[in-house]
């Protein structure tokens, strides 16, 4: 039976309740939410609102500030372009995924905004100082990941949020690898949280979230039908509809609501503890092999992700061999070129990412296969 250890890309398998919720939407919720007054449409609209309430409760936000997106990249593009639309300076971290780095770089290369890159260190205080030193009078936003998708390193985001609050800078957080395994609340200082629905929140692929605290207006980058102010040609500015033009992914949203309820039912601390034990077990079983390098530093904290390299074998080759043996891990650059420049991993890494469904016996099985492919 093949085993998925690529849960940082998307969690699989999905919880039974998530599958049931998606099926329920397709079987029973035929109406287009917010697009009509008939019973079918109203039922769909009520379910969507209920999903907003559950998700808002989970992240300590207001339901009307929960925006459903296609994925985390979509949410981040809406946030970055929507906040930087009239120019200014932004700071991103050296560990950013391309979902942050590319929209920021595109704005900079079109001279619509300027950007600086703050180096992330293993020591939290140095990282915070790195951000602080780059703040200018025209800095409008700090955009950074809560945890690196390459190494899993947790950034000192509460301190960065405090820095933003102190200077009235918008803090846009990429929660793709942190949400569902660590406690993330808007009340801890995040102005705009963007995250995937299909990773640690266990929803279907094709779901994402943008959650605002309402302090910084986001100019929509997509215009269209919202089911509101329909006789006007101007895009409405009220959240959430302002950022939700077009028909919503009802099955995906229902699955995401169920996924959040699943995480709440088990508890973030238990999920983190389980996955963290598997990461430790993984490293312990391979410890002492001088050809294996784990990209971890003792001073830093991590979400349950372990990136590693094996001397003498390319990451992609190693992952292909492991795939043939029934173990699925992602290799390469993980869509995060900036991070590899900083880490010095010019050939990329192999990434071990368990989920709540992963088993210790499967970790042991994987480690045995890894030992066999070491040259």
């Amino acid at each position, binding site marked *: 039976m093949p085993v998925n250890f690529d849960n940082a890309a998307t969690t699989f398998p999905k919880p039974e309740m998530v599958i049931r919720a998606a099926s329920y939407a397709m079987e029973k919720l035929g109406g287009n*939410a*917010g697009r009509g*007054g008939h019973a079918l449409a109203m039922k769909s*609209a*009520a379910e969507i*609102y209920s999903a*907003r309430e559950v998700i808002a409760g989970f992240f300590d936000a207001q*339901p*009307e500030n929960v925006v459903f997106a296609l994925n985390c990249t979509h949410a981040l593009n809406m946030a970055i372009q929507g906040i930087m639309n009239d120019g200014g300076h932004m700071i991103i971290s050296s560990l950013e995924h391309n979902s942050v780095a590319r929209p920021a770089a595109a704005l900079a290369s079109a001279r619509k905004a300027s950007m600086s890159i703050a180096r992330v260190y293993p020591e939290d205080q140095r990282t915070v100082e790195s951000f602080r030193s780059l703040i200018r009078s025209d800095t409008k936003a700090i955009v950074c990941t809560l945890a690196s998708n390459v190494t899993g390193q947790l950034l000192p985001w509460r301190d960065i949020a405090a820095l933003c609050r102190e200077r009235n800078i918008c803090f846009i957080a990429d929660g793709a690898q942190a949400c569902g395994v660590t406690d993330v609340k808007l009340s801890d200082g995040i102005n705009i949280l963007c995250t995937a629905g299909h990773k640690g929140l266990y929803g279907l692929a094709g779901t994402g979230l943008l959650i605002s605290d309402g302090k910084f207006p986001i100019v929509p980058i997509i215009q269209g039908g*919202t*089911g*509101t*102010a*329909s*006789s*006007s040609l101007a895009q*409405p500015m*009220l959240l*959430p*509809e302002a950022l939700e033009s077009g028909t919503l992914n009802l099955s995906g949203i229902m699955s995401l609501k169920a996924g959040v309820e699943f995480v709440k039912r088990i508890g973030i601390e238990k999920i983190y503890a389980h996955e963290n034990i598997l990461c430790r077990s993984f490293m312990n079983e391979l410890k002492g092999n001088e050809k294996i390098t784990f990209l971890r530093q003792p001073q830093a904290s991590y979400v349950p992700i372990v990136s590693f390299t094996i001397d003498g074998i390319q990451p992609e080759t190693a992952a292909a061999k492991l795939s043939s043996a029934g173990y699925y891990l992602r290799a390469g650059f993980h869509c995060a070129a900036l991070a590899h420049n900083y880490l010095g991993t010019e050939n990329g890494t192999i990434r071990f990412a368990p989920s709540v469904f992963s088993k210790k016996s499967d970790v042991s099985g994987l480690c045995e296969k890894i030992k066999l492919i070491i040259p």
Partner: protein
Amino acid sequence: MTVCNVEMPSYTYAVKAEKLLRARGYPCEIKRIDRPGSSTCGFMLSIRGHCREAIGILKNYSVPFTQIIGEEFDNAGKLR
């Protein structure tokens, strides 16, 4: 009994307003508007009784609305 109809800017805010008022004991329901104005979503909140207090609660909680249709109010939500 006085009934006031509050035109809402979005279905999201209509539900938010309905839940807010019902939790405080004000009977209300979401209805479609026959001839919606240009800045509404086609939904209104129909509140039965104590309209003045109910509108006050919406304002206190910063729940936006576009227009109030009722004997006691002008369309800015102020008492006539």
